């Protein structure tokens, strides 16, 4: 048996497979399918200081090899999470990553403070949500914006801080370096790519929000490229995501430089996808005589 455990910013995960934020709720919904303690970690539904209703429907559209969503950070707020969901999640043996979002820097700081004394293991700063009018991705598309919010949140956060980056930028590497220099303990990428579909008979966008975030296998090559670029430019660990649907995809992402991976949209067609990916990675590693999954991280050999 190959060792699958990995360390992200000082936190040990039993395997590198994390369910991606927004695709797994607070975990309860998937308990009927498998023991969620098998997961390396859960990146929880993006939460805000106060409850958010989210966007009107339709919030989803299928696309070639993927999907667009525009949920708009519907969530019960951090206090409801601490009261109603965290006690349940703490009965599970898996790493809990609180994905936190806000409209202002103060919002992010408030939620980091509220979580400081909680038992979540890591924070994932969501400065990349494309589906909210204020904040969200606005912080993630400039070095100054990203650095500013990381600097402020680091003063309030007790847990190690991952920063989830948006791919909707011209230079992902400079933003990654900016957040690293302000003390980010890890970088996760990519959030969704901004996209749009139109119903040509009605001449209306399919999504009520007009635009939404593209995910699924369609974005996988973009994610691999960005993870590779960022992992080569920063010293902190990188968590790779974007269209991972199989163990081979996960291994590819780790060879690009990711120390762990997140699985999202793949669960919609196959609820068992994370478990199949864990098992498939184990079997691939064993089949290749690799004793520890860490041995593959960043091992892609570029042509020049």
């Amino acid at each position, binding site marked *: 048996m190959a060792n699958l455990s990995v360390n992200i910013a000082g936190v040990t995960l039993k395997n590198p497979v994390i369910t991606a934020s*927004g*695709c*797994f*709720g607070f975990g309860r*919904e*998937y308990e*009927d*399918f498998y023991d969620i303690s098998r997961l390396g970690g859960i990146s929880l*539904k993006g939460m805000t200081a106060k409850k958010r*209703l*989210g*966007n*009107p*429907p*339709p*919030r*989803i*559209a*299928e*696309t070639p*090899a*993927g*999907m667009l*969503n525009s*949920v708009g950070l*519907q969530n019960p707020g951090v206090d409801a999470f601490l009261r109603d969901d965290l006690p349940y999640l703490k009965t599970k043996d898996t790493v809990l990553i609180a994905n936190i979002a806000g409209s202002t820097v103060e919002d992010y700081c408030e939620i980091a403070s509220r979580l400081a004394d909680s038992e979540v293991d890591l924070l994932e700063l969501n400065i990349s949500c494309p589906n909210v009018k204020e904040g969200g991705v606005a912080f993630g598309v400039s070095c100054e914006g990203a650095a500013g919010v990381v600097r402020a949140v680091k003063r309030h956060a007790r847990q190690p801080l991952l920063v989830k980056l948006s791919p909707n930028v011209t230079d992902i590497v400079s933003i990654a370096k900016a957040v690293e220099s302000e003390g980010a303990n890890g970088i996760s990428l990519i959030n969704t790519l901004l996209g749009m579909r139109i119903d040509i008979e009605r001449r209306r966008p399919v999504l009520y929000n007009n635009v939404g975030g593209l995910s*699924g*296998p369609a974005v996988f090559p973009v994610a691999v490229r960005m993870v590779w670029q960022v992992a080569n430019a920063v010293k902190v660990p990188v968590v790779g995501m974007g269209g991972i649907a199989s163990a081979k995809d996960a291994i590819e992402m780790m060879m690009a430089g990711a120390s762990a991976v997140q699985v999202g*949209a793949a*669960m*919609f*067609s*196959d*609820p*068992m996808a994370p478990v199949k990916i864990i098992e498939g990675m184990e079997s691939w590693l064993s089949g290749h005589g690799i004793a520890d999954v860490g041995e593959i991280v960043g091992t892609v050999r570029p042509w020049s």
Partner: protein
Amino acid sequence: MICREFEIVSRQEPIPGVFDYKIHCPELVAEASPGQFVHIRCGERSLRRPISICALDRGTGELRLVFEVRGEGTRELSHLAAGDRMDILGPLGHGFELLDPGARAVVVGGGIGTPPLLEVARHYGERCQAILGFRSVKNVILDQDFASACGTVVCTDDGSWGVRGTVLPALEAALQGFCPQIVYACGPKPMLKGIQELCARYPVRCQLSLEERMGCGVGACLVCACKTRAEDGQENYAHVCKDGPVFEAQSVVFE
């Protein structure tokens, strides 16, 4: 909850573009109740398609699904033949609340919204009245199935079959003459809104089965939002897959 492939027993196309499948899945049938739905994988597509349960045969273990081809996903599903396997996740969601069969019920179905009401009609039998609305005679489905379960009125917009007009006048007549304890409805949103208003006016309890574009199907991804209003007036977005697809009519806000 079950997620695996099951064998298709039969496939029919009662009218062009509408497909009627029977699938052998005894363990799923044993768990399911009327008004719930199943989420079906469409080949390599990213998203499953939610299809409401039309009928459950506990004896043969057969699930019956009747759906219309609306887009590429349902078209792909409609290519499955008897003997093929269908990847089904379910049963999902909250179905209809069925009262004691001694109560009287009216079911109102519009177009492809009629299938989930068939098991409700069978539950109440002769103490049920079905009102089924279609655009035209060529769109009529399941009328014989309903007629063999309960009293059935068919309405068509163009009068080419049954009563001319929408289901609303027929429902109002039933509310006055048949005096049901409960009304169940599924169909296009304008129809459901009319039924909601009519039932509130009488007043008669009413349950609506809604649809929305769906992602995970289990309540995790929050895409299939439906605006609801609680008794205290507070509005929220509930989710069709987990909180529904059946909602109490007075809690639904049509936007």
